[in-house]
Structures are given as C-alpha cells and as structure tokens.
C-alpha cells in the first residue's frame, strides 16, 4: 500500500506538470460538450423547396401556403416548368421539387384522387429523406383536411381508416440534446480514459524510465495500479463535471434515475477502458504508435456505438461489432438512467457484460504486460 501511495504521488505530480496534457484533460470535455451537441442536431429546418405549379388553382395555392407555413420549408422558387426547377437543384439552391400537375383541382374534385410529383436532391441524404418525409406528412394532412371538407360525415365510415398519432415518451418534445449530450459525455470519457492511460504508460517505455523502475522491488501489479488509479479518478471527475455542471446548467438535463447506480456503472466501465489503454500500451513502443492504435479503435467505438445512428438499423455484421463495443453499453446505460430513470433490474445485463469486458480486457493486458517485460 505504501508503494502505491508513492507511485500515485509521483503520477499526480507528473500529470499536473504536463502543460500539454492537463488542459486537454479538462478543457477538451467542456468545449466538446458545448459544441458537439450543436453539430449533432437531427432536426432539419430551412429545406429549400422549388414549386412547379401547372394548375394555378385555389387548391394548389392552399397546398403551397400550407407547406410554407409549416416552418420546415423555405420557398426557393416558383417556377413555370420542371426544367427551370431542376436548374435550381443543380445550382444547389433547392433541395426538393414539388410538381403539381395541371388539373390538380379538377381531378381531385371529380375523381377523388390526384398525384403530385416530388423530386429530391439526395446528395445530402439526411436532409433529402427528412425533407421528403416532412413533405409527405404535409400532403397527408392536407389530404385529410380535404376529406373533412368534402365527404359528408356518415354514421359509419365506409372505408375504415387507422390514423396513427404518437407521443414521445421520456423526451416529450423530442429534444435531440437530451439524448445526444449523455451520449457525447460517454464518448468523451472513453476518449480520455483510453488515450491518456495508453499514452502515459508508453511514455515510461519511450523515455526509458521503465528500465529503472524494473530493477527496483516495485511489483508489476503495483506499477499498473499506480498508472490506472489516477486516470480512474480523473475520469470520474470529468464525468461529474460534465453531468452536473455542463449538462445541467447548459442543457438543463437532470438525471431521472439513481445517481449511485450511474456511478457504479461508470466505475466498472472506466476499469474496462483503462484496461484497454493498458492493453494498447503493451503492444506499442512509442507514444505515436499508441496514439494511432487508440485513435483507430476509439473511432470505431464511437461510430459503432449507437451515438449517431441507431444500432437496430445496422446490418447484422455491424450489430455484432456494436455488441462487442463497450461504448455501446455505456451510452445505452447513460440514456436509460438519465432520461428514463431505469433501475438496476433494467440494466442488469449491461452490468454483467461490462464486468466481463473489464475482467477480460484487464486480464489480457496484464498477461501481455508480464510477457513483454
């Protein structure tokens, strides 16, 4: 215990003297938590729509003003021919074209149905798919308005219709920040844990100090603990700061679930991550190597964690990768506890899996550490 105390003292002195690392440890999470959620906004507004109205009727006017008033669309042009509207797309001035055919009103009244044409600029996939979905919604809405006007209410509706209305649980206003911020915080902790830990250990190798340490009676396990504990504490500190200062005061996120449960999970998660850092350090000789390896994995961890895209919509093989990714479980748990207020029973599987991760990665790292030294 005495040895560990001195090792920790040494370690903290070195960390707090590192003029390049220290700001990174504390400033980076703050800046990223403030900036990143803004970049991860999935709500798309200001979709430019070009309209080609061949009908010039009252109904087509109504439809157009309904689109304009929805708040999502911006009228980029009111063209007389499709070719002209197409030019707007080519010049990147419009994202969507809505073409209303001649006889729109007439057919609608007489034949009770009509088709409109939507062309989408799919270069920005998200914008295109969301834009056309919004537009479809508006058209549907418009459609039902018409039906109310036209069809005399009968006692029994001859054609049964199922109308879907949804309510958003746990995040009633679908505020994307509520689920992005906890996720980004999870990724930040991951980055700090794995990078810093791997770099710190490899630095001893690179500078050669590990030679001097190895001829002393310090046991390997003490040395490893002396390396992991400081970053475990820093991880917890940064997390606390992110959750109780930034998430709370900037985004107004107040965790619903049990805080102790969240910290319990974080503790095990950090052990797994630091083990991962240790593992990287056993395979690399220089800080540059360690950084590159860590970067490679953290990148995959981040993109395959369900932070930006839903894991359920990934192909099977990608789901397998996501399941082998500790970050997936942490983001999941973060969202469950913070937004949903889940209890231990709900995240028991997560706990088991992350404990296995921690044991597995650390076991591998320690074995490899002993072998290479």
């Amino acid at each position, binding site marked *: 215990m005495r040895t560990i105390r001195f090792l920790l003292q040494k370690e903290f002195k070195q960390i707090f003297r590192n003029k390049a690392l220290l700001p990174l440890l504390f400033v980076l999470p703050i800046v990223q938590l403030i900036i990143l959620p803004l970049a991860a906004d999935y709500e798309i507004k200001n979709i430019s729509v070009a309209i080609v109205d061949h009908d010039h009727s009252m109904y087509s006017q109504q439809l157009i003003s309904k689109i304009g008033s929805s708040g999502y669309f911006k009228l980029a042009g009111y063209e007389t021919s499709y070719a002209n509207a197409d030019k707007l797309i080519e010049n990147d001035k419009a994202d969507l074209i809505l073409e209303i055919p001649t006889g729109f009103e007439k057919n609608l009244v007489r034949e009770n149905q009509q088709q409109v044409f939507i062309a989408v600029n799919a270069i920005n996939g998200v914008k295109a798919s969301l834009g056309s979905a919004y537009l479809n919604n508006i058209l549907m809405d418009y459609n039902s308005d018409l039906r109310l006007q036209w069809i005399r209410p009968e006692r029994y509706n001859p054609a049964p219709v199922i109308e879907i209305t949804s309510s958003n649980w746990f995040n009633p206003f679908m505020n994307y920040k509520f689920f992005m911020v906890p996720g980004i915080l999870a990724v930040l902790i991951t980055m700090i844990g794995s990078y810093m830990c791997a770099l710190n250990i490899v630095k001893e190798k690179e500078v050669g100090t590990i030679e001097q340490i190895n001829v002393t*009676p310090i046991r390997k396990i003490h040395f490893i603990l002396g390396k992991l504990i400081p970053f475990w504490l820093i991880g917890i500190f940064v997390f606390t700061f992110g959750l109780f200062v930034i998430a709370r005061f900037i985004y107004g996120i107040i965790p619903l679930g049990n805080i102790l449960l969240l910290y319990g999970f974080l503790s095990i998660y950090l052990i797994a991550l630091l083990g991962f850092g240790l593992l990287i350090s056993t395979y690399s000789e220089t800080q540059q190597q360690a950084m590159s390896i860590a970067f490679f994995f953290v990148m995959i961890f981040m993109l395959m964690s369900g932070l930006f895209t839903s894991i359920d919509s990934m192909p099977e093989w990608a789901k397998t990768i996501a399941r082998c990714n500790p970050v997936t479980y942490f983001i999941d748990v973060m969202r469950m506890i913070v937004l949903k207020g889940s209890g231990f029973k709900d995240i028991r599987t997560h706990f088991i899996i992350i404990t296995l991760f921690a044991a597995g990665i650390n076991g591998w790292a320690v074995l490899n550490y002993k072998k290479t030294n």
Partner: protein
Amino acid sequence: MDSVTLNNISKTYNKKKVLAVDNVSFSVGKGELFGLIGPDGAGKTSIFRMLTTLLLPDEGTASVDGLDIVKDYKTIRSRVGYMPGKFSLYQDLTVEENLNFFATIFDTSIEENYELIKDIYVQIEPFKTRRAGKLSGGMKQKLALCCALIHKPTVLFLDEPTTGVDAVSRKEFWEMLKRLKQQNITILVSTPYMDEATLCDRIALIQSGKILSIDTPEKIVEAYPGKLYAVKSEKMHQLLKDLQAFEFTGSCFAFGEHVHLSFKDDEKDHQPELLNYLEEHGHKHIELQQITPTIEDCFIKLLKS
C-alpha cells in the same frame, strides 16, 4: 566470496538469429571495480541487463551477491543499483523528487543513506528544485548515480556512465567511483573508452559477445607480445601507406598523431632498415621510438589474433 559470477552465459535476439553474448564466463570479487571494455554492440549492455534481471539468458547461469539471477530476481532487485546507459529518471520531476521517489520505493530515505551519496549529492544540491530534464549531461549523470546508490546497494552496475559526458566530468566521475569502492561496494562499469580501462581494478575486453581477455590492466599490457613502436613524420597519410608496404611490418594503424607499428618478428632489430626505407620514400623529420602499449593496442592485437 565472489560478488558476481557468470557461467557460460549466452544470449540471442531475433529468434536466435543475432548472437549478442556468446558463452561468457567471469567473476568479480567483492569490492572490486570491474570494467567491461568493448566497442558499441559488443554485448556489454546485454550482459548488464541479464545481471540486473531485466533480461533472461538463453543459456548458462549467473549469480549476483550469491543469488541466482533467474530464481532470486526479486531479492537481487532490492540489492543492486543500476544506472542504464540512457538517462532514465523522471525528467518532469525535480532532482530532489527523483531521489526521494527512488529512496521510498526501496523503503529507505535520503537521510538514512546520506553519507553514501553525500560527496556526489552536494554537487547537485544547489539545483535540487530543478527538473531533472533541465540538468546538464554531467549533472544528470550525477543524479542518476545518486538514485542508483540511495538504497545502499551491494553491487552497482553502471552501463556506459561516461558516454556523452565531457572530459572533466568523466574524470570527476571516475574519482567518485574510486571513493565508492572504499565503501566496499562492488562496481561493474562498462565503457567504450579504452583510456578508462586503466582506472579499473580488473577489466574484461569484449568484442562481438566474446570475452577476449580478463585481467588487471597492467597484466594485459604486460601480456602484449613483442615490441611496439610509435612512428611520426611530416606526411602522415603517406607514412601509413608506406609502412603497410614495408616487408617486415606486422601491423600498423594510426593512433592519435602517431602510427603504432609492430614488426613481424622481434628477434632482429628492424629499426635502421625502416629508417632507411622511409628516407628512401621521401619522409622527413622521422620520429621512431619504442613505447609501452596501451589497452587499445592490446585490444587491437587481440582482435587480430
């Protein structure tokens, strides 16, 4: 009792492709200042790393302070002091913090063994709040020696302690070692500088992982077969070429401002013949005299035989 013994130690690298240490055996007595002398890549560091339990030998056995380097590595680590060739202290800790750190992990304190390091430490004490990384080369060396001594080791391993240190600091360093010897600490030191060999009690000349000779520096010099001459003239480059072409030349090589020369056989005095030969080849101001060989001469002789 011998402090360090090696029995037929071999070490290979790269899956037995590179032979670094080849069947080396020697022993060092207690309180001896023993020098391992050889050029870069001779296997000095490998031997030191094996003796300090950082590396396992492929073959052979060795003991330090009566303890086996494989079985009792833990006990050895608490008894030996090791100063690697590359500065290996924490550059971002101060002089005092480094010393304190190494004292505490050996379960001792600076005060407890202050006597041992006093002579050396007083020289760096004025800089004790300076970070180790900001010290000059000679200062770093002194600090590293203090850190290697702070737990009062019985055997001290110094791997090329004077490489990259200026001439004055080198001299000082060897004086420090002599004082340490009086404390009955066994010291093994490796160096590529032949001129430092005479400062050791005994030396081992090593080349390509093999020991060429082990003895006191005096005896190694005495064992030099035949006579050695130093030759000098105005045209040194031409002189070396002409000497190589001379029919009785055994070996000749440039050594500082002279050419060191030995004849094929020493039964007959070839000096007058040589002088004539050189004058015929247009050399002026020729100096020729017999000299006592240095360790370097012995080393080169051993390499050739």
